[in-house]
């Protein structure tokens, strides 16, 4: 048993050692080498999430008739495409609650900023002169 090999196992945490064991446990003489293979363009990993989040993913998946994996994958893709920033897909802003006006702005932060002037105009509309109560 080479000393370096035993030394490697000395650096395992106690939790790891309970799973991995020690160098002497392994059949080093019977090691098998496997040739490389084509690497697929997909890989798989598991994710630990809150039960509440899993429940929400399941509800969305059920409503859309897709799998939880599909919803999780799509969420990750959107997050990555947004450069790791929280992408706001749907912002709901209420103005002049006394007038019952509800403005719903679709899009991200930049789009919301672009819509600010419109929102300001809406705010200046006197109560009672607003047409439809909801847009």
């Amino acid at each position, binding site marked *: 048993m080479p000393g370096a090999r035993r030394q*490697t196992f000395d650096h395992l945490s106690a939790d790891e050692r309970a*799973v991995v064991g020690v160098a002497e446990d*392994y059949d080093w003489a019977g090691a*098998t080498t496997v040739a490389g293979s084509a690497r697929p363009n997909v890989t798989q990993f598991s994710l630990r999430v809150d039960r509440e989040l899993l429940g929400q993913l399941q509800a969305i998946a059920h409503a859309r008739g897709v799998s939880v994996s599909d919803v999780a994958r799509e969420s990750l893709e959107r997050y990555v495409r947004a450069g790791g920033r929280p992408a706001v897909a749907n912002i709901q802003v209420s103005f002049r609650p006394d007038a019952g006006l509800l403005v719903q702005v679709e899009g991200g932060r930049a789009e919301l900023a672009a819509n600010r002037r419109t929102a300001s105009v809406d705010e200046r509309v006197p109560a009672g002169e607003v047409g439809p109560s909801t847009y």
Partner: protein
Amino acid sequence: MATFDDLVFHPDFEGHQSAAGRRVVTVVEADQAWYGQRTFVRNRRRRAGRYLMIGRTDRGRNITVVVLGTANPGTWVAYTAWDTKPGDA
């Protein structure tokens, strides 16, 4: 001889390593090694860690990955990893 088709990653694959204070072998690096030429060393004891997978990343980092068995033959779970030292392989 077991078959080694698919590798999936334990949620704390990298966390196990950092908790032990080692330089982390990333999920991407372990995935690279899995599809290159690699050597499997069987654990003779009945532990969750069934095999050591010793391989090399695209950048030439020699790593050892501990893989656990699953209910699906051929599919393995990467549990933790470390840098392979000379004499390990």
